[in-house]
């Protein structure tokens, strides 16, 4: 089994807000991230797939194909968007880095599985170079 990882970047805005809470509670828990005017990040999406290298090509997957899948399934929806206002999965869920990693997994997994061969192993999302979250498909 070989693990292959590809990176891509996207820029998006968001804010953290739980509608069930008062403004004071939101500000206490989320701090500056609760500013309803939003703020933005340069995110890095890191996608890892796992599989055996193909006997003929030596590829786990074709990197160009993986790049296209990431662009079509994730970047087309998130890049230069306001995540709270423009993506259906964050109409309710808060676009924390954890939830973005889970949502990106859900967007990518069907396409990777359908292609056969390699399996999606890990999705890691960097919000800044110092802060990241990842999802490994666990329940």
């Amino acid at each position, binding site marked *: 089994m070989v693990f292959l990882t590809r990176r891509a970047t996207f820029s998006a805005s968001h804010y953290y807000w739980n509608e069930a809470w008062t403004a004071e509670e939101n500000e206490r828990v989320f701090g500056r991230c609760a500013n309803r005017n939003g703020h933005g990040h340069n995110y890095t999406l890191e996608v890892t797939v796992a599989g055996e290298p193909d006997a003929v090509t030596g590829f786990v997957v074709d990197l160009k194909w993986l790049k296209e899948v990431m662009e079509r399934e994730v970047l087309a929806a998130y890049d230069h968007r306001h995540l709270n206002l423009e993506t259906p999965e964050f109409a309710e869920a808060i676009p924390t880095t954890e939830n973005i990693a*889970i949502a990106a997994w859900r967007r990518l997994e069907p396409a990777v599985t359908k292609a056969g061969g390699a399996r999606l192993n890990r999705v890691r999302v960097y919000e800044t170079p*110092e802060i990241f979250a*990842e999802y490994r498909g*666990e*329940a």
Partner: protein
Amino acid sequence: MKAYFGRRYRLSASHRLHSEALTAEENQAAYGKCNNPHGHGHNYVVEVLVGGDVDPETGMVVNLAVLDEVVDRRVMGRFDHMNLNLDPLFLNRVPTTENLCRTVFGLLKDGLPAGQLEQVRVEETENNFFEYFGERS
């Protein structure tokens, strides 16, 4: 649903690699320049990975401010801009980055909710790093 949250912290400290169990020549052979009597320093990066269920109310595995507070209090406050050899935890243990990594893991494990700490990575320079996941049975 289990997810992971990671955070990188910068820590500058000095150390000297020297073992009392070795002769001066053996120390020199084992540690080379790192055995220089007056020590030297690094800009370490400490990468902390925690795991757990995503809280449906906050969308978070851990609140960043809470994690920062634990790391600041238990690790940064203790080691940042310090001489590692002088810390009681390194009195009888050479402050290699392997040992620093395990020590940081232990300090954070005791300060975080049970089962939350997944991994500590310590990068000593851009070209070397060490990871510790705890002891697994």
